């Protein structure tokens, strides 16, 4: 196996252009597991961890750009106000070791329906910045996932960064699993409220072939909040509305039975998570 370690982004893109079949490795927390189980045997590994720029983040106005090589540990430490939903989700990833190694780019690269970064990215309508030697393009995160563990990247493309709007309101994330640490979500739910845009965003993990949004739930909640002028008044939410939101969120999912949980349990849990994240987020909004 050949091991390449480019030190600049252009070099990495050139390598990928020349060897589109080469496997990229960032934190390696997914790649090394696959190598260990002999699920894949790439002829070439391209290590991205020597590219300093890839592990940085910047703010440009109200847009936060997070380099693909930024780890969960740094998201937790540095971005908990700018991207609170993503930071909460990052705290639930694996163990300290995994959070120190694992990156947001790697999570997207694996495109697992259970990837914990995905629901908050969906809820905040993030954009995935993709590049190749041929040029760059921006892909809305919703369009990024094409199937279970599949995404839109062409063989010569790399993920450069994700951009998200700097949080304008409360964001929440919750997941259920068989235990608290080192667990792949049985199901997860992210919620982002944007009082300026009067918008509601959601993201669901582990309950369909790809991470998805609960669009109908978003639409109904945003509509009701606007109709009752709730963004202004911040009154307690009507129980029926919360239940309705929870039900629509669960209905958006297409869960299956697998080793981690049954479809029925997932659907049930999803409604619970939607209800809980909405109550947490709304109380936070009422307090501020």
């Amino acid at each position, binding site marked *: 196996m050949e091991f390449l370690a480019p030190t600049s982004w252009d070099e990495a893109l050139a390598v990928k252009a020349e060897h589109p079949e080469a496997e990229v490795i960032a934190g390696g927390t997914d790649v090394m597991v696959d190598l260990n189980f002999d699920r894949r045997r790439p002829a070439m590994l391209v290590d991205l961890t020597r590219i300093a720029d890839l592990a940085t983040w910047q703010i440009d106005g109200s847009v936060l750009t997070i380099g693909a090589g930024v780890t969960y540990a740094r998201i937790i430490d540095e971005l908990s106000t700018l991207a609170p939903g993503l930071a909460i989700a990052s705290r639930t990833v694996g*163990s300290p070791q995994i959070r120190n190694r694992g990156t947001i780019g790697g999570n997207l690269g694996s495109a697992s329906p259970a990837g914990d970064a995905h629901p908050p990215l969906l809820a905040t309508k993030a954009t995935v910045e993709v590049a190749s030697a041929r040029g760059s393009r921006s892909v809305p995160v919703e369009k990024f996932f094409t199937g279970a563990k599949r995404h839109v990247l062409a063989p010569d493309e790399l993920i450069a960064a994700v951009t998200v709007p700097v949080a304008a309101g409360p964001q929440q994330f919750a997941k259920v699993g068989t235990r608290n640490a080192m667990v792949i979500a049985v199901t997860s739910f992210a919620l982002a409220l944007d009082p300026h845009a009067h918008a509601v965003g959601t993201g669901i993990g582990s309950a369909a072939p790809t991470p998805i949004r609960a669009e109908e739930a978003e639409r109904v909640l945003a509509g009701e909040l606007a109709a009752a002028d709730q963004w202004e008044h911040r009154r307690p939410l009507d129980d029926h509305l919360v239940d309705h939101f929870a039900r629509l969120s669960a209905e958006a999912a297409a869960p299956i039975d697998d080793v981690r949980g049954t479809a029925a*349990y997932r659907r*049930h849990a999803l409604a619970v998570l939607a209800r809980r994240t909405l109550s947490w987020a709304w109380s936070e909004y009422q307090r501020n």
Partner: protein
Amino acid sequence: MTAVDTPVVPWTGVVGRPLPRVEAAAKVTGAIAYADDLQLPGMLFCKLLRSPHPHARVVSVDTTAARAMRGVVAVLTGHDLPTKYGIMPTCEDEQALEHEKVRFVGDPVAAVAAVDEETALAACRAIQVEYQPLAAVESIEDALAPPDGEPLHDYAGPGNVHRLAALEFGDVEAGFARADHVREDVFFFEGNTHLPMEQHSATAQASDGQVTLWSSTQNPHYVHRALAKVLGLPMGSVRVVAAPLGGGFGGKCDPFSHEIAVCKLALVTGRPVKCTLTREEVFYTHRGRHPTLMWVRTGVDREGHILAMHFRSVLDGGAYGSYGPASMLYTGALQPTTYRIPAYRFEGARVFTSKAPCGPKRGHGTPQPRFALEVHLDKIAEELGIDPVTLRRRNYVEPFTRTVNWLRVTSCGLQQITDRVLDASGYARRRRRLGHGMGFAVSSYMCGAGLSIYWNTLPHSQCVVTAGRGGVTVFCGATDIGQGSDSMLATVAAEELGLQPGAIRLVTGDTGLTPVDLGSYSSRVTFMAGNAAREAAAKLRQLLVEAVAEAEGRSPEQVQVRDARIGSLGFEEAVALAEERFGTLATHGSYTPPAGIGGRYKGAGVGPSPAYSYSAAVVELDADPVTGEIDVHKVWLAHDIGRAINELAVRGQVEGGVCMGLGEALMEAQAYRHGLVKQPSMLDYKSLTFLEMPDVETILVETVDPEGPYGAKEVGQGPLLPVIPAVVSAVHDALGVWVDEVPVTPDKVLRALEARARGRDARYGPKSFPVVPYPPLVKVAPPDAAAPTL
């Protein structure tokens, strides 16, 4: 020499003190060499080719291409190792490499020795095996049905039934007839596996027809026997050395294919050969907890006194016999060691399925019935409106009695551990609120099986202690599997000789150098090897004392042994003097359990023990009524240890047992889909992590057993047992529903809540117990209650 008269006081220098383990520094610094750390010059690496089918006839195995590969030194198939073996003489149904048929995914069919693991693996892939698939047997129900085609084995039966038992002690029907209240319940305990940190590893070296095996095994003696048999060598030509173990928990108790294969490959190639299993292979090697379906019926009077009990079990044994007949009998043996059951009927069965073989795991065959029994008693208490602790206390066995199935009970701290665990936890004062609960349960476990696994006249443990210019050395077959057996031996010898444990050199678990100890299973080591070591060291002490007394001109009773001094002499001087006086200083000790501790009926071999430990647990948890998630806050565990030889080591075992018990109660499952283990990795097989591990408050109660070394009893297995039913009981306390199936996962909790919401029985669990072809009852007269018991 002037004799100074100092009063002789008993030396309690080391027994009872919380000393660090003798191998602690080596383990913490990484200096200790586990089996896989062994490197020998010219060593080859072995990989096993395993069956991808759950059940298939092996039509042909073509190794031509593999043999022709560069770097491949030897290839074996079942034809090279045709002798069948198995840990129990009644079911020697295994072959190191199967050449006629395979019975589970993972069953080995060929072994390759090559210059490195990659080459060995590539050679395994180049072996062409033609299989003719047969019908898989995936569950207890499948196994009880008439076989679809041929059964897994051509012995035992009917069909895929492996073993059956039916015993009755006392008049059970009369007991039920007298009862004011009779209750029946059905329970299921899912299988789970040991999950030791260390994967199995074995290395063999051969020369001049002699072979030495270093292996991560708990039982070098039994491996020694199996190797001699399968390799066709005299026992004297085979030496088995147990390497320090990174955990066993029962998973390293059987002789294994990889151990036999490396020996044969070393004999064939003349080079050392190593085989280390991958984590996935460990899941297929298994020998873990039997999935067990249970039915129990109990008759009580109005006060909750048990009048009769009928207990049925069916164990899913997987593909081979292993310890199965014992595992099955254990599901019926120990119920009467905690509760007085005047009339008791047990019907047990073990079936073969085409899954990885089950075997002994911490608590061997008793966690399943303990879970069923304790939860069943909780339900009876609830129906009678009696506090569950009070109901239990009314039925506790008394110390120094005999159970209805003839087990001799000596020291028994049930009442004390109950008092202490209730006090510490505040169980009786707990405040009831939805979603929060506490549960209580008790259990008992053996301090070593009363009988060996195969019939023989050997003492169960033997020890030699030598002293000379090289210091004191203890030679004993006992094997440290991480439970602290080495520290125990060193502490016992040190105590007798007035030394510190660190001053004792140990040679253990080596069939070429040490006298036989039967192995590290059934919590037998402290009781049996401890007594053997104590006897040997006391004899040595006697020689030292005599020599010093003679030299000092006073009686031996006046010679004080303590602080590395024998009388007025330093220990080394005393040894030199005694050597001069008696010649080479080597003493021996042995231990055999006393006769008459069990009954004389068929099946009576399982259950008797020279003593029983007792444990009581209280578990406090939150159970989410909406998601079904369970968060355990704290576990209080009171344990009747007899006497703690090393308190620190005892506490470590209690905490480890609690951790494993919680894992089994809440999440661990070795489950299958179409013959494949569903979770064959440490990421997917869920056990507790630091985050889920709650606080454990350990309370030790010392009842000082009359026969244990210094009064000691076991702690390696017992404390796991009450944790599982206490969790189930706490979930009921929190939510008002019963989960009669372990592990108690969130979806089961929710389904029980849903059942209640729909007006059905507020429980989740098996609905019925299958029809099992139990044999006619063997009626055994219970011991005469009036006769003296000891």
